[in-house]
C-alpha cells in the first residue's frame, strides 16, 4: 500500500478522512501469507491472519481490509476457526487464546455503507464505469458472506451515488490471473485482456477496482496486451476510492491519478472531471 499501491492508500485515507471514518492501523499487523503460506503450510496460512485478527479483537474494532486477497485470507481463517479443534491448534501456534468474535469487512463494504452520507462536490456525470470486483472479494460465498458471487452490486450502487453510471457487464467477478501473476504472464494477459475488452465493449470509460492485485494486472499490462494480443486502445483502471475522492472534491494530483501506468487523465479531462 505504501509502494506500488500508494494510489489506493492515499485515496482511501483521504476519502475516510472526508467521510469521518477513522482508520487506525494495527501496530503489529503481519502479512496474511497469501500465495506462499496457503499453498504450502495450512497451519501457517491460518496462524498469520489469526495474529492480525487477535489484535483487532483486543482493540475491539472491526477490521477494514483494503486488499481482496488479505480479506479472503482473514475470512478463511475466521471460517476455519469455527471448528473447535482448529481453534485450539491455531491458538497454540499463535500463543494466544483466539476467538471468532472479530468483524472483518472489505474496505469497499465499509465505504459503500449507505448510512454514511457522501458530501459530493463534483458529481461524476457522464462517466461510465465498469465495476470490477475480482474473484476473491465475493468468493466463496459461504466463507466471505459478502454480496452476490456472480453479479455483485455494492460497488455499482456506490458508483451510482457518485453520479457516474455503473454499466451492467458480465465479468465483474472473473479472475484477472493474479494467482499466477509471475509464473504465467501469458495467462494473466489473456484473462485480464478478456476483462478489459468486455468492459470496453460494454461502453465503459474506465474500470473501477477494489484490490491492488487486480489493479496491477489490469493497469500494468495494457502495453503487453497491445503487443501480444492486439489490444488497440487504453482503458484507465482506477481504484474506487479514487473515484470517490474525485467526486468528493480532491484533485487528481492529491489522489495520485497521475501515477497509473495507463494514464486516466486525458479521459477524465475529456469528461470534464478534472
Amino acid at each position, binding site marked *: 500500500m505504501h509502494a506500488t499501491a500508494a494510489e489506493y492508500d492515499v485515496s482511501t485515507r483521504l476519502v475516510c478522512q472526508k467521510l469521518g471514518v477513522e482508520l487506525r492501523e494495527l501496530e503489529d499487523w503481519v502479512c496474511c501469507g497469501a500465495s506462499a503460506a496457503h499453498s504450502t503450510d495450512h497451519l501457517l496460512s491460518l496462524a498469520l491472519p489469526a495474529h492480525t485478527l487477535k489484535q483487532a479483537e483486543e482493540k475491539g474494532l472491526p477490521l477494514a481490509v483494503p486488499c481482496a486477497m488479505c480479506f479472503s485470507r482473514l475470512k478463511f481463517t475466521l471460517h476455519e476457526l469455527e471448528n473447535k479443534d482448529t481453534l485450539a491448534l491455531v491458538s497454540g501456534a499463535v500463543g494466544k487464546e483466539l476467538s471468532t468474535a472479530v468483524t472483518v469487512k472489505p474496505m469497499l463494504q465499509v465505504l459503500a455503507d449507505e448510512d454514511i452520507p457522501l458530501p459530493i462536490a463534483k458529481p461524476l456525470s457522464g462517466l461510465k464505469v465498469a465495476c470490477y470486483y475480482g474473484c476473491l472479494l465475493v468468493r466463496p460465498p459461504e466463507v466471505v458472506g459478502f454480496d*452476490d*458471487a*456472480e*453479479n455483485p452490486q455494492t460497488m455499482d450502487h456506490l458508483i451510482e451515488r457518485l453520479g457516474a453510471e455503473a454499466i*451492467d*457487464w*458480465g*465479468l465483474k467477478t*472473473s479472475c484477472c490471473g493474479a494467482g499466477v501473476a509471475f509464473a504465467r504472464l501469458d495467462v494473466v494477459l489473456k484473462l485480464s485482456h478478456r476483462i478489459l475488452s*468486455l468492459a470496453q*465493449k460494454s461502453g465503459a470509460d474506465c474500470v473501477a477496482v477494489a484490490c491492488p492485485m487486480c489493479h496491477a494486472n489490469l493497469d500494468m499490462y495494457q502495453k503487453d496486451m497491445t503487443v501480444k494480443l492486439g489490444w488497440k486502445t487504453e482503458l484507465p483502471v482506477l481504484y474506487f476510492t479514487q473515484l470517490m475522492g474525485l467526486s468528493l472534491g480532491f484533485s487528481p494530483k492529491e489522489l495520485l491519478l497521475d501515477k497509473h501506468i495507463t494514464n486516466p487523465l486525458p479521459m477524465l479531462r475529456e469528461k470534464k472531471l478534472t
Partner: protein
Amino acid sequence: MSRIGVFVCHCGTNIGGVVNVPEVVEAARHMPLVAYADANKYTCSEVGQASIRDAIREQRLDRVVIASCSPRMHENTFRRTVAAAGLNPYLLEISNIREHCSWVHSDSKDATAKAIDLVRMAVAKVARHESLLPKQVGLTKRALIIGGGITGIQAALDIASAGHEVVLVEKEPSIGGRMSQLDKTFPTLDCSACILTPKMVDVAQHPNITLLTYSEVKEVRGFVGNFEVDILKKAKMVDYVKCTGCGTCWQACPERIPSEFDMGLGSRPAIYIPFAQAVPNKPVIDIANCRYEKYLKWKETEEGPEPPQCRICEGVCPTEAIDRSQKDEIITEKFGAVVVTTGFKTFDHSVYGEYGGGRYPDVISSLELERLMSAAGPTGGEVLRPSDGSHPKNVVFIQCVGSRDDKVGRPYCSKVCCMYTAKHAIMLREHDHEVQCYVFYIDVRAGGKDFEEFARRAQDETGALYLRGRVSQIYQEGKNLKVLGEDSLIGRPVEIEADLVVLATGMEPSDNADLIAQKLNISYNTYNFLIEAHPKLRPVETQTDGIFVAGTCVGPRDIPDCVAHGGAAAAKVVALLSQDSLTTDPLTSIVDPMKCVGCFACKEVCPFNAIDEQVTRDKRTIASINESLCKGCGLCVVACRPGAVNLRGFTSQQLLSEVLTLVRG
C-alpha cells in the same frame, strides 16, 4: 386348556444341518400346553402341510407353532394350511429358526439351545392368540384422479373403460399438462399435440369420466373404499352450458398477460383458453387480470385512479355465456380410490448466477425452446432469439441444470434431459441447416428403447458438438453470449460465442405437491416427490390404502413411462373397485372401553387418523379405532397410560410372555 401342536422343520439341511431338530422336538413336547410335537423334512411342501392338517384333526390341536423359516416367507402359506384344517388362521405362530438361527450360527449346541428358546417363546405367545375374523366394509366404486396430464389422462381412460366412474380434477383451465407444451417427442419425433389431443378428447367424451377443470382438491377424509373429498371449483365466470367455445370473446378481449402456457414468451387475453386444442375448449376469466373485475374491485374502496370498465366479452358473446355471478364453490364427492398424478415443473435456473441468473434474455430453458419450436407457439414455430428476434446460428446446450447438482440441492438425475436435448439438436438442424449446436454434458444417459440410437443420431448426423464438461460462466458480449466452459476429455477450457443458450432444466414436483400429500396422508421425500409403497414391487401404491401415485409426481420419468405408470395405477384401482366389499386386516389396535379414560394420547400419535372419539352409553367420551384405517403399528398402545389400547397379534401380554418365558426359562 389349549392343545398346542409344534412342528419343527428340517428345511433339508438348512436347519437340520446345524440345529438338532429331534432335540428341539423333544424339548417342545415338555413345554406347557403342548399336546403334540413333530418334525418335517420340508414343512412348506404339500406333504409337510398335509401332515400339519392331519395332526390338527387327529390330535384335536387348537393352536399351532411352526418352527421354520422367517414368517416373512411363509406366514400366509401356513395360515392357509391351518385354516384348511378348520382352525382360525390367526391361531398360528411361526418361530424363525432358519434366518435367525441355523443360517447365522455354526455351533450346533448353541444353535439348538437358541432354537428351543425361540420355540418356547412362540408357544407362550400362541397360547395368547385369539381367533380373529377379517372385517368386510363396503366401497364406493368411483375413482378420483388429481392432475390431468398424460399420466392422469391415461389412468382416467383405463379406469373408465373398465366400467368405473372417474372424476378427473385439474387445476388449470385445460387438461393436457406438460406434454401439451412440448413440440415433438423423442425418440420418434411424433408431434406431441397430435398424439395427445385425441386422448384429451376421449377424456371429455367418455361417458364414465367427469372432468373438473379449474378445480383443486381441498380436503380428504375417510379411508380405502370410502373417501370423502372436498373439491374447490374455481369460478370460471363462463356458463359452460351456454358457451360454444366459438372464441369471439378471447379474440375481443383487449387485455394482454404473459402466457403461462408459452412460458411467458407469448401473451394471452384475460378471458382465455391456454392453448388452441384445450379440453374443454371453453374459456375462463382470469379474475386477477380482467379489466372489469379490476374495476369491480376498485369500486369497493375507490382508492387510486378509476380503471376502465371494459365488459367487451359480455358484449360480443353470441350466447350470453359470460356469467359474473359465479362464485368459487366447494363440492363434496365420494370415492373408493384416489390416484395422484400432479406432475412436475421445471427447475428455476435463476439460482445459477454463473449462467446469468435469469438476466440474459437469450439464456432460455428447454421448455421455452419447446414453445419457440412449436408451430402453435408464440413465434409460429420459428426459433427466434427472445432479445432481438433473429435466427440463432450457434446454440449452446447446457445439461444437468438443476439435476445431478448438490450445490442447488438437486442431486438426482432428471432422466429426460439428455434425450430432449438430443431431440432439440436434431430439430434445430431441421429448422435451419446452418445451426451449429454445442452440448455441454456430464454423461449422455440414453437408457431406453431406441434412445441410444437417437442420441447418437444427434451427435453423428447433425454435427452437434458434444463437450464433456461444465460451463463456468456465461456473459453477454455485444449482441451475443460468451460461454466459458471446460472440455474435460481434452482437459482444456473452451470458449464459445453463442447466439442462444438453452439450459436443460431438470424436473421437480409441481408446486404444493407436499400439501396434497399431507391432505392424503402419504409420504414425500426432501424434494417433494411422492413416495411409493415399495420402490420396486409396489411402484404405484402408497402406504395409505386406496391412494395411488403415478407419473412425474413420484420421480422424473418420460412420456412412455408415465403412460405405463398411469395404466399401472389404473389396474390397481380397477382391482380395488371390482370388489363388492373390502376385507380389512384384523391385526389392528382395539380399545377396552372400560379402561379408556378418554385422554386421546393415542389419537395424538396415530399416523393414520384411525382413532375417533366415541360416546358410550354412560356418556363417557372414549377412543375408538377405525379398523379400516388402522395399520397395526401399535404406537397408540405404548402411548396409552391406563393400558386400554392393545394390538391384536402383538398384545402387551404376548410380548411380556415372550420375555418372561425366555428369561425365566
